[in-house]
């Protein structure tokens, strides 16, 4: 740790290109490829880059989670590995930091599992694990009208989507898509088990090429819901099976592919 900090202090700014996939620490400054060419590594700290705007072509770069723009500089705000995605069109692509964390920060469009904590007037307060509860209108359910209210009790689980998620503002959830269809969202059944995992594991499980879900599905028939806020709801036929599934999914975080396959084959036998 000390050594890492030293290396950060020692070289003022590293080129983003050279640290791809490596560990970055909060407060570190990264240089984009264009800046690097113009000034060489380490030069950005002393001289503002804006002094010669005409000499360089402007490239559009997106700062993803864990990075923030500060004037002309790109700063790291989270500890983790730097990732980069090449753009499909022109531009500099997307940079982000892959970090392991448990605290969820609401993001617009994310599908999450929330717990209803209060009913007040025509909105529900839903705990999603963020810094403050999200609000959910009772009209934001499929087929809900002023007369026909959805049957939601305090303590129920809700699978919904964020439509408003701004900094310093109360996030807002809905359980319908833009066409007014439920599309799988709504109140989750009374049975089953809810448990929490890290956000990194959820992202891993929801990745399009993730095999874990298929493998789990082969073990037992199950119902499963993943919330981007690190919550998983799972239900199998019996309590025992539900517990096994929950424990396996939790354990998946610290297993290699080989180990996982071994366990799954052993479970399939028993």
């Amino acid at each position: 740790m000390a050594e890492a900090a030293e290396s950060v202090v020692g070289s003022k700014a590293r080129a983003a290109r050279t640290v791809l996939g490596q560990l970055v620490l909060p407060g570190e400054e990264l240089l984009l490829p264009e800046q690097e060419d113009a000034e060489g590594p380490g030069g950005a700290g002393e001289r503002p880059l804006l002094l010669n705007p005409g000499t360089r072509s402007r490239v559009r770069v997106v700062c993803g989670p864990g990075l923030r723009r500060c004037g002309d500089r790109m700063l790291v705000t989270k500890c983790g590995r730097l990732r980069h995605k090449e753009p499909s069109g022109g531009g500099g692509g997307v940079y982000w930091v892959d970090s392991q964390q448990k605290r969820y920060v609401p993001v617009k469009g994310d599908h999450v599992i929330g717990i209803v904590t209060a009913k007040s007037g025509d909105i529900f307060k839903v705990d999603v694990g963020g810094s403050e509860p999200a609000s959910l209108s009772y009209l934001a359910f499929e087929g809900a009208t002023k007369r026909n209210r959805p049957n939601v009790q305090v303590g129920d689980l809700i699978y919904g989507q964020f439509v408003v998620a701004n900094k310093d503002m109360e996030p807002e959830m809905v359980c319908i898509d833009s066409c007014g269809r439920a599309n799988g969202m709504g109140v989750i059944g009374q049975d089953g088990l809810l448990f929490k995992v890290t956000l990194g594991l959820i992202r891993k499980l929801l990745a399009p090429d993730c095999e874990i879900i298929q493998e789990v599905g082969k073990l037992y028939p199950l119902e499963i819901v993943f919330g981007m806020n690190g919550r998983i709801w799972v239900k199998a036929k019996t309590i025992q099976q539900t517990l096994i599934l929950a424990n396996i999914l939790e354990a998946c975080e610290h297993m290699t592919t080989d180990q996982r396959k071994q366990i799954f084959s052993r479970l399939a036998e028993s």
Partner: protein
Amino acid sequence: MKETPLSNCERRFLLRAIEEKKRLDGRQTYDYRNIKISFGTDYGCCIVELGKTRVLGQVSCELVSPKPNRATEGILFFNLELSQMAAPAFEPGRQSDLLVKLNRLLERCLRNSKCIDTESLCVVAGEKVWQIRVDLHLLNHDGNIIDAASIAAIVALCHFRRPDVSVQGDEVTLYTPEERDPVPLSIHHMPICVSFAFFQQGTYLLVDPNEREERVMDGLLVIAMNKHREICTIQSSGGIMLLKDQVLRCSKIAGVKVAEITELIQKALENDQKVRKEGGKFGFAESIAHQRITAFKMEKALIDTSDAGEKAGEIIAEAEPPSEVVCNPVLWTPGTAQVGEGTENAWGDLEDSEKEDEDQDGSDEAIILDNMKMDTGVELSDTGNQDATIVLSDSEEEEMIILEPDKSPKKIRTQTISAKQEKVPSKKPMKKRKKRAVN
């Protein structure tokens, strides 16, 4: 920040699982979670882990004037803090009901049971006595704080050494640790709290409830006992009616658990003592592997390149022409083979993301100092190592115990103790890891 509410579905599931004699983490009804005790560099400092619940204990001493009504007795002071680090729901600087209850229980368990000889803490009667202060900090909250805190308190007290004093006439001399070895406190017995959670009006009983079980329980019974089966404190909360034979049964279970825990504590203390005497590495600062966070990063080495050109020319001149292409397949890792030399193997690419994750896990573990530390150490040592699979399947087995109801709880206990034994003088795996870092 408000506590995450418990959903109806969790509550229902938990109660149904308890009815079926199953627990979330696969324990049996009377099982404790794994207990791990590690010591700090200084005397009187320890961290006790009870599953994911962690408590830091620190003992300090001071010379003060005694209470006028007890002129020949030292003073004991206990303080448990629930910091926000343990759980976001704990508010800093506020005496919550839970905190008051826990502190009171701890005091009753340790001070009122007279486990520490306060008379031996007297220096000059009526003028100077030692005040022993035990500070306990909850570092992570996953239920059953009181058991973890009582273990941490007694372990820290057993580990603590106070400076030696001598009295000659009116003259009191206080010796520094260099002049005279510090002296341990005289401890008569070790009271340890054991918690029992009751569900469905006392129909079901669980030992060592975790956080979620604590939330759905109806009542709690805490029994503090020492290994001589003397009850030091007993407290029932939650307003539940208990039958006489239920309490008797609980006290019997408590006796067994306390004996196990006392044995574990003594073993940990002995191990620490031995390591200190041998001058080996001790303390939890030492048990955290150094620089693991950067272990996967290549450090750039400064190389003298002044005569690199000539040297390279020499080497090229002397070198034999390159050998022919190797036709035997090369096995990099199980499941990833390569035929031919120098060619890019596309097989590894498939598992790339997996590997990165594996790396991340490694660095993660270095920080949280998990039980699995040694296992990952071996796992990372090299690909396809035979030992690695054995060790990991071992830890897997513990997972399997979680899932299978018919293994005896005794076995788990012995496993943890043996794991503990291996851990404390953990010079071997550490060395191994260091070597790798150099490579």
